[in-house]
Structure formats: C-alpha cells, structure tokens
C-alpha cells in the first residue's frame, strides 16, 4: 500500500527534512518526491510505502497534518487508491 503525501505552503528551509524525518520515525518508506508550482503555491508530493507503518494510518495522517500546521504548511496524506481510481479507467 502506498500513500501520497502532499505538502503545500510557502517555501522554507527544512520542509523535506522535517516530513522525511516523520516518515522515517513511523516506518513509512519514501519512494519518490516531486515538486511543482500551482498558482503561487509551492507544492511537494511524496509517494511513500506504508505497509510497515508502526502506527495506525489515521494517526500517521494526523501527525503529519499537525506537523504541517506547526510550520504553516498544509499537509494531506491520502491513500493512493483515490488518485488511481479517479484518473485511471
């Protein structure tokens, strides 16, 4: 199972480091990282494998979101199936 972690907000030092550290702490293996600009937003998208997560997925989602709030970032973590279902027949 894979999760898509999207991070949007103003650019800053240490965004990738911070999110990556949280992933490592919870046993999420980062497979890919990409960055993109949408309107004025700086957007980063991570794909992470979550099979060996050491906390429930919902807790992982909340912790990332909390971390985002503390850094004035929006972090959404969603199961990859929603994207696959929506954009692939």
């Amino acid at each position, binding site marked *: 199972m894979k999760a898509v972690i999207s991070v949007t907000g103003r650019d800053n030092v240490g965004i990738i480091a911070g999110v990556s550290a949280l992933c490592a702490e919870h046993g999420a293996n980062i497979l890919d990282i*990409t960055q993109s600009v949408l309107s004025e937003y700086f957007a980063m998208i991570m794909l992470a494998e979550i099979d060996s997560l050491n906390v429930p*997925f919902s807790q992982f989602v*909340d912790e990332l979101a909390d971390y985002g709030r503390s850094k004035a970032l929006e972090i*959404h973590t*969603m199961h*990859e199936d*929603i994207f696959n279902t*929506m*954009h692939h027949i």
Partner: protein
Amino acid sequence: MINTADILETINMIREENLDIRTITMGVSLLDCAAGSPELTAAKVYDKITKRAERLVSVGEEIEKQYGVPIVNKRISVTPVSLIGGAFGEEAYVKLAETLDRAAKNLGVNFIGGFSALVEKGATAGAAQLIRAIPEALSKTQLVCSSVNVASTKAGINMNAVSEMGHIIKETARLTAERDAIGCAKLVVFANVPQDNPFMAGAFHGVGEPECVINVGVSGPGVVSSAIRRAGDCDLSALAELIKRTAFKITRVGQLVAGEAAKRLGVPFGIVDLSLAPTPAVGDSVARILEEMGLEVTGAHGTTAALAMLNDAVKKGGVMASSQVGGLSGAFIPVSEDEGMIAAVRGGSLTIEKLEAMTAVCSVGLDMIAVPGDTSEAVIAGVIADEISIGVANTKTTAVRLIPAPGKTVGDEVSFGGLLGLAPVIRLNTASPARFISRGGRIPAPIHSLKN
C-alpha cells in the same frame, strides 16, 4: 508514480471545490421486526438497527481519513415503517418513530429515513395510520425522515393521498411552528420513488432490497462549476463532454468509498447515487453551475435547457464510473440548500413556475421551497398534483418538499441551519384548486405505462 497534475487536481477538488461524499447510507430491512405488540416491535427495531449499523459511523470516519475525502453524513434507511406496524394503530407509529430517532442518536448518524408509506394505488390500514401519524412523529423526533409515494407511472396518481398530504404538510408545519416548520423539511411526497435512494428526506430501504446494504451519494457541484469556468467560451458540445468527464471523476470517488465501506462493514454494496447535491456553502451550488454555463441568473429563460444538459451529462459521465448506479442520480435543485438558488429567489428571477419546469428535467422535484404560512391545504395539494403528474407522465422520479412556514409571507425567510439551509418564502398562485382536489379518486396511469 501517479501523475503530479492528477494529484494536484484531486487535492484541489477536495480542498477548494467542495468535493465530498455526501452520504454513506446503510439500508436495513425491518421486515423481520414485526412482532405481537407495539413494545416488542419497537424493541426489535431498535436492536436490529443498532446492531447492524453499530460500526457505520466509525468505519465512515476511517475511510474519510484513509482517502482524505470528507464524508459529510452517515445515514440509515429502513424498510417503510408502514409495513411493520399495521396492527397497532396511529399511536404505535409515533412510538416507532421515536424508536428510530433514539437508535439514530445512539449510533451518532445524521438522519434515519423510512418513516414511509407507498400508497400509489391506495392505502392499506397501516399506511393510512402511518400517514396520519406523520405530523406528530416529525414533531417529536429530530433525525427521522418521512416520505410518501403517492403515484407511479404504472399505477397513476392516488389523488386521495395527494389531498391528504396537503393536510399533513400543513399540520406538520403547525406542530413544528416554533422551529420554522422544520418538520416539513423532513417530509417528502414522491412519484416513482426509487427504492435505493441514499439521500434524505426520501431514503428508505425498499422491499426488493437485500437484508442490509450500503448505498453512497456523491456530491460536487463546485467541481463541475470550476471546470466550466476554466473551460472558458467553448461550445455546448464541448461543455457536455467536460461535464461528463468531471462527473466521471466525482463518481469514481463514490464508487471507491462505497466499495471500501461495504467491504469493511461486511455488507453488500448497493448503488452509487451520482447526484450533484448542493449545500448552502458558497462554491457548492447547482444554480451557480447554470450561471457559469452562461445564464445571467438562474431562472432566466434558458435555465431549463441548461439544466437538462447538465443533468444528462452528469448521468452519462457517472454511469461508467460506477458498477451499479441507482437512487435519484442527476442534479438536485433544492432551493434552501443551494446558495445560488436562494439568491435567485431573493432577486425575483426564480419563480415557482420556473422551478416546476426545471423539475421536468432535473433528478427530483420541487425541493425545500418555503411558501406562505397561510397557503391552503388545497393549494399545497394542487402543487403536489402538478409536480407528481410531471413525474408520472415522464416516467421519472419527482417529489415535493414544501415548507408552509407559519406566520411567514412572501419576502420573509425561514432558516434551518446546517445542510437544510435557508429559504426565502416564494409566491404561489392562490387561486383555489379545491374542487378538483376534493374529487379524490385516481388519475389513471398514462398510456405509455402499458409496456408489457
């Protein structure tokens, strides 16, 4: 890796354009709950609902977290209650409504539907009692929704029931007068009612349905509206394609959630209802889609054509996205629940006559419309008869949910808050149809009902 643009599009739909799953509705059969006494029946009903739907809310919340898509409501629909309480009289039906309400509250669901009767050809003793019990039942409960099917293309229109519903709606308004007649917001009169609809107030669990089932209703007017805005000045063929593609994506989310909910709850998946269901929030309006298509304001001439195209494109896009489509499926046009509709009525552009025309091509009918509190029972019955005949003649579902707000007149507004929203009182034609309505009897089924 998944395409970045696709990811950003999905996130944008959810965060900025109000894409959500409107409801996961669990249908529960109560046919095995009829027992020897009203008390025993109520106890069985309570036990069955609370046992079957025990995990509905928590599973809904888990799925919401997993996919990052809001699931606004978790609801329950049950077998039309008229079928299980026929032996006990009107009072027992009120008690059953209170039982449903208690079960819904204890489970933490948002609504429970199925305080319903199907009387298109005539009422059984139980159905007649249930209908008479509706005003009291809705005044004593908060989460119970009620519906009455008074007509079908196969059976014609039961005008006795139409006439009685004029009275029942007024009485419900009277008994819930202190809250702007909120009881009427939970009471809907149908023609050709679907048996698997997950949307309230008309949801119930039909008799041909399995023991327990999961139906899902999607939403997403804001997504369609934004897509049209981005498309600019394309022609209507291109616009129809665009709406289809957007509806496909929205419905796919519904299908994903429905499949996952069914799996986790160990209950069969029923249908996805691919409706564009508005909310009073800005950016979540069907009226604004019509305006984005090029109308100055909803209600302008051209509105019916725009809505017909929208409704059709939504169905075409959605039907391929789901393995089973059902319910009402199309575009809803409830006045109080749609910010653009509210504005159009306030501005005087959208009238009851135009709304009636729009219902011929939308998915339901005259929905959540506040009318003057002194409207006579006969006029309300007349509105119902007109709307229902549109459904019967066109082999489609139509419905009426009117709120004759006590003490209110044209220019006033009623406010319910939440998803039920706010409705400006609309002007009705007050000329009396009383003699026509009081004739009673049945309007025969149209000739095209003879398809066998």
